[in-house]
């Protein structure tokens, strides 16, 4: 029998149903696990043991009365520190919000509360979700549980590392350009970015509003399906959230779902420079595995792939420069103590509150929106975004899903890319297209490098067909035989 902290949500729920374990015992196990590994991993910005134990006891009371709310009732769920839960801190890993406490609960978090989930911890991230390594946090550097000299990926690096290290059962993160899938890949867990509009962003601190989505981290596809089911759905408080039926994802997972399906493999992704040979070999053998369980493999072309990085870093920084204008030192943020007047207060509060990468992106975003440059950069990027969307629309006329690597390399060393922002940006090549096109994407472990570092396979699906995408991922997971591997910490 595996340790409590490495059990799946379904296993834990069954153990609570059969009264072998209580939520209080499960929560305690995760708290103890967290305390025993946090000095090595540093996945949490903060946690509140008392409120977690209180929620666990309330869950046990419900179960005892036969009033279980869902399969997640009593399960410890970690939250990226960008999601609002009333009375909990929300720092965005920034000095700007170091003392901020949420005055309300966001919609997806309210849905999780209504499902009975136990919130366990505020997870580290790159400041305001800007970064691919978790090194841009103002508070700490999260380490990769598979090799603590390496980064966990980002921006949701704390969520990925905490799930991989058994510090919470599942976690929520946010993905603007790969911030769920890339750290999931680098930490050897499942991470999914749903279709733009599936999960409400009310209560998610905004980075780039035309790209941001909330999504699940889990140690298996079924757990990701359970968590996604709990948070998906239309919300009048997010005007971009879409009215679609939410099927019961977990019960729709099929081992034979890839049989007879056409998998598109984009030529341009495998021609991209900078892809590690071991990543390539592992992803190619994963695609072969899909073929062996009945999928048909076809080469496809996404001709505008190499334009995605410039388009993304124009669109995302432009939107960020606008969204982050709200952090002004006046209403609810850090306020400089040495400003000489109100205008100087903006300049100094923002200088003191924001870290380097956030400043760099605000400056870049302000520049591409500024008079004289708007047409050449922002408007042109929006037009090329239309071409990128068109690439995917055409591809999905002839295939059921697209398979690609999630990240061009395995986890890199702490400090390796931090001084070269462009090199860091180029690392997002395989994930950002999916945000630009608004499609769902999932990263699933597909192998390990010689050094023992996880490699992720990315599956990209049709808009709002999460049920099919999760089922394909489940079929691959079953065939891969990689379930149940954990880092040695």
């Amino acid at each position: 029998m595996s340790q409590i902290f490495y059990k799946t949500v379904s296993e834990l729920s069954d153990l609570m149903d059969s009264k072998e374990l209580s939520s209080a015992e499960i929560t305690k196990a995760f708290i103890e696990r967290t305390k025993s590994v946090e000095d090595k991993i540093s996945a949490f910005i903060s946690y509140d043991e008392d409120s977690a134990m209180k929620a666990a006891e309330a869950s046990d009371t419900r179960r005892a009365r036969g009033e279980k709310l869902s399969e997640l009732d009593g399960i410890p769920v970690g939250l990226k520190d960008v999601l609002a839960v009333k009375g909990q801190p929300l720092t965005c890993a920034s000095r700007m919000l170091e003392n901020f406490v949420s005055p309300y609960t966001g919609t997806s978090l309210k849905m999780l509360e209504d499902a009975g989930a136990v919130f366990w911890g505020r997870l580290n991230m790159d400041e305001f979700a800007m970064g691919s390594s978790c090194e841009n946090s103002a508070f700490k550097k999260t380490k990769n549980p598979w090799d603590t000299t390496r980064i966990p990926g980002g921006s949701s690096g704390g969520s990925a590392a905490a799930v991989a290290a058994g510090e919470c059962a599942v976690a929520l993160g946010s993905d603007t350009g790969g911030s769920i899938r890339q750290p999931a890949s680098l930490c050897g867990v499942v991470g999914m970015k749903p279709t733009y509009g599936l999960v409400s962003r009310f209560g998610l601190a905004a980075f780039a509003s035309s790209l941001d989505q909330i999504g699940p981290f889990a140690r298996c596809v079924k757990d990701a399906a359970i968590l996604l089911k709990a948070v998906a759905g239309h919300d009048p408080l997010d005007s971009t959230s879409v009215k679609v039926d939410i099927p019961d994802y977990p019960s729709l997972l099929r081992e034979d779902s890839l049989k007879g399906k056409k998998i598109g493999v984009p030529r341009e992704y495998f021609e991209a420079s900078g892809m590690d040979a071991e990543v390539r070999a592992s992803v190619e053998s994963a695609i072969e595995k899909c073929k062996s369980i009945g999928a048909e493999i076809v080469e496809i072309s996404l001709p505008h792939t190499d334009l995605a990085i410039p388009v993304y870093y124009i669109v995302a920084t432009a939107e960020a420069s606008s969204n982050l204008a709200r952090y002004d030192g006046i209403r609810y943020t850090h306020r400089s103590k040495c400003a000489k007047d109100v205008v100087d207060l903006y300049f100094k509060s923002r200088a003191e509150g924001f870290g380097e990468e956030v400043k760099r992106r605000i400056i870049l975003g302000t520049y591409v929106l500024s008079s004289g440059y708007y047409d050449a950069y922002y408007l042109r990027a929006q037009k090329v975004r239309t071409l990128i969307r068109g690439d995917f629309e055409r591809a999905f006329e002839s295939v059921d899903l697209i398979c690609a690597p999630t990240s061009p390399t395995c986890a890199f060393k702490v400090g390796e890319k931090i001084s070269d922002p462009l090199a860091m940006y180029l690392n997002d090549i395989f994930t950002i297209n999916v945000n630009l096109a608004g499609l769902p994407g999932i990263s699933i472990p597909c192998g390990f490098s010689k050094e023992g570092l996880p490699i992720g396979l990315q599956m990209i699906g049709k808009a709002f067909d999460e049920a099919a995408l999760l089922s394909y991922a489940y079929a691959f997971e079953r065939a891969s035989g990689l379930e149940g591997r954990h880092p040695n910490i």
Partner: protein
Amino acid sequence: MSEKSRIDIDYVAKLARIELSPEERERFSAQLGQILDHFKKLSQVDVSGVEPSAHARAVFNVWREDKAESPIPPELALMNAPQKRDNQIVVPKVVDDA
């Protein structure tokens, strides 16, 4: 390589309301120049007749029912204010003395 991209860092930082240190100014100028060079790829794409995408899918005006709901009470709305008095946020003086 054609002419290196340059950015008027002081002007843009002013628009962004961020005070930069001399070191930041120098570092960001160099890094952003390099990033803008990478963006030049976009200028070679033929986008004539292509509509811009503001979102991944078209979003039109979205309305919800005009129904009064209880707002966040002042004490909650102000709980994170750096300086407050009488249910209001205190800011530095914004008008000059006459």
